[in-house]
C-alpha cells in the first residue's frame, strides 16, 4: 500500500506538543489524563475501528494493568519499569482468558465484555482478598512515586498506540482486519485467517489499555478499585472514538481533544452537564453521522489521516 506521510506528521505533532507542555503548563495531572485518554482511544480504535468489536468493558484491561503494576510493586518490590511489564502482562492475560468472547457478535460481545470487566472488579475489590489486593481500601505506591518520569513513559506509550494505528492503516494486515469487520465469511474466503486477525487486534488493544493502566497506577500512586475499574474510563474511550470517527488516527484524536477539553472546562465541576452533552452527542451522531466527525470529510472522498 501507499504510505501516507500525513499519518506520521499528526502523531508527531501531538507527541511533541505534550513533550514540551509540562514546561508551559503547571497542571501536569490534566496533561497526563489527556495522554492517557489519547492512548486509550487509539487502543480502543484498534479493536473497534479495525475489527468492529466494541468492548464496553475496555476498562477491565486498564484496571488489570493498574493492579498488575501495583501488585508487582507491593509484593515483589519490582522497580517501576518491571512493574509496567507486569501490568501489561496482567492485561494480556485477561485478554487471553476472554478470547472466547470473540465468538460473540455485536451487542452480545459488548455486554459480555462489560460483565467481564465488572467481574474482575468484583474480585479485585473483594474484602476477602484484602491481603493480596488491599480489597476496596485501595493501594498506595508512594515508594515508586515519580510524576515526571512516569509522564514521559505515558507519552512513550501514546507513541506506541499511535504507531500501532499508523501501522494498521498502512499495512495489508490492517486491510485484512477491515475485511474481517466488513464480512468475516468473505474475508475467510479471501484467505484471511479470521480468528488470528481478531485475536491479534484484541491482544494489541488490551496491551495498550494495560500499559496505560499501569502508568496511571505509577503516576497517581494512590488509587482505589473504583478508580482503576471506573466504568467512566470505558465510556469516555468509547465516546471519544465514536465522536471523532473510528478507523482513522484523527477521529479518536479529535474526540479526545474536543470532548475531554470540554470535560475539563465544565465537566469536573458539574459532571452531569457534561454527561448530558455527550449523551446527546451520541444520540445525534448515531442518527445523523454514524461514522463520526471525520465522516464529514471522508464522505466527500477525502482521505483523513
Amino acid at each position, binding site marked *: 500500500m501507499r504510505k501516507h506521510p500525513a499519518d506520521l506528521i499528526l502523531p508527531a505533532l501531538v507527541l511533541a506538543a505534550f513533550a514540551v507542555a509540562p514546561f508551559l503548563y503547571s497542571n501536569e495531572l490534566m496533561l497526563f489524563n489527556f495522554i492517557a485518554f489519547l492512548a486509550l482511544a487509539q487502543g480502543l480504535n484498534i479493536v473497534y475501528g479495525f475489527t*468492529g468489536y466494541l468492548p464496553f468493558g475496555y476498562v477491565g484491561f486498564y484496571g488489570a494493568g493498574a493492579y498488575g503494576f501495583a501488585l508487582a510493586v507491593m509484593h515483589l518490590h519490582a522497580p517501576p519499569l518491571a512493574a509496567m511489564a507486569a501490568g501489561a502482562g496482567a492485561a494480556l492475560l485477561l485478554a487471553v482468558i476472554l478470547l472466547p468472547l470473540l465468538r460473540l457478535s455485536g451487542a452480545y460481545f459488548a*455486554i*459480555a465484555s462489560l460483565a467481564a470487566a465488572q467481574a474482575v472488579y468484583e474480585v479485585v475489590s473483594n474484602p476477602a482478598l484484602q491481603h493480596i489486593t488491599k480489597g476496596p481500601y485501595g493501594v498506595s505506591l508512594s515508594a515508586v512515586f515519580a510524576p515526571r518520569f512516569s509522564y514521559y513513559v505515558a507519552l512513550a506509550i501514546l507513541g506506541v498506540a499511535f504507531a500501532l494505528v499508523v501501522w494498521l492503516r498502512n499495512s495489508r494486515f490492517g486491510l485484512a482486519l477491515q475485511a474481517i469487520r466488513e464480512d468475516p465469511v468473505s474475508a475467510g474466503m479471501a484467505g484471511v485467517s479470521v480468528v488470528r486477525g481478531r485475536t491479534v487486534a484484541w491482544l494489541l488493544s488490551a496491551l495498550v489499555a494495560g500499559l496505560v493502566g499501569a502508568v496511571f497506577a505509577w503516576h497517581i500512586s494512590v488509587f482505589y478499585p473504583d478508580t482503576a475499574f471506573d466504568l467512566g474510563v470505558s465510556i469516555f474511550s468509547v465516546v471519544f472514538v465514536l465522536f471523532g470517527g473510528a478507523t482513522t488516527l484523527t477521529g479518536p484524536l479529535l474526540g479526545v481533544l474536543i470532548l475531554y477539553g470540554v470535560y475539563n472546562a465544565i465537566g469536573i465541576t458539574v459532571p452531569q452537564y457534561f454527561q448530558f452533552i455527550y449523551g446527546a452527542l451520541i*444520540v445525534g451522531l448515531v442518527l445523523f453521522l454514524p461514522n463520526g466527525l471525520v465522516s464529514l470529510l471522508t464522505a466527500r472522498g477525502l482521505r483523513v489521516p
Partner: protein
Amino acid sequence: MLIGAVVAGVVFGLYFALVGLGLNLVFGVMRIVNLAHGDVLMLGGYAAWWLLSAFGLHPLVAAVLVLGVFIAVGYPLYYLVVPQLQRARDSEMLSLILFFGLSQMIEAVTTIAVGTTERSLPGRMLGIGPFILLGARLPKPWVFSGVVSAVAVAGVYLYLYRTRLGMLTRAVMVSRDEALATGIDVHRVSALAFGIALGLAGVAGVFAPFMLGSITPAMGPDINLTAFAVIVVGTLGNPLGTVAGGVIYGVALMLMQTYYSSWANLLPNLLLIAVLLVRPEGLFGRKTRRA
C-alpha cells in the same frame, strides 16, 4: 436456611423476571438493544419516591401511574428513533450505542434534578413483619413486590396470547419481514411493545427500593447487567422464558448470598458470560440464532 434461600430466591426471581421482561420484549420484537433500560427502571423508582413524598401516593398507585405514563412516552419515542435505526446496516450495534447515549442523558438529567443521594421508600408501606411461606420467613414488602411482578408478567402473557395485537406482536417476533409482507402495521405493533417495555421497566423501578434496598441515578448499568443475565439465561427474544431466567437468577443469587455472600456480586456477570459462551440461545431456547 436452604429452603429459606430457595423460597426467597423464587420471590426475587419473579421480580427479576419483571426487571428483564421489557428489555427482552424490545429485543424480541425490534432486534434492538435498549441500553437505557436500567435508566428507565431508575426513573420509575424516582417517580414512586416523588409521588410518595409529594402526594403521599401508595407505591401500588404509583405503579399504575408509571405504567400508563411510560407507555404513553414510549409509544412516540419509538417513532422518533427506532425506524431510523432499523434502516441502518448494523442496527443491533447502532441501537446499543444510541440507547447508551440516551442512558447517559437520563442519568445526567436525574442527577441534576435530584442529586446523587441514595433514596429509599419505607418498607412498611407494603406490609409490616414477616410473611411465612413454606416455613420461610420473608419480609412482607418482598412478597408484595413478587406478587405484583407475577401479575405484571401474567398481564404480558395475556396480552401476547389472548389479544389480537398480542398475536400480531408475536408474528413480528417470529419474522419482521413476513409480518410486513402480510400487511401487519409493524410500526404500530412495535411502538406499543416499546411503550409496554418501558412501562414494565418503570413498574420494576417502583418496587426497586423495596427489593434492591435503594435507588440512585447511577444504578442503570448494574440493572442492565442483571436484566441481561436474566434474559440471556431465559432465552433472548422470548419474553416468557424470562420468567424462568428470573427465577434461576433469583435462586442462584439467594444461595450465593446465603453461602458465599462476599462473592454474590460476581453472579450476574459470571452467569451472563457463561450462558452466552456455552448456550447463547439460552437455557430453554432452540438454536435459532447465532450469537
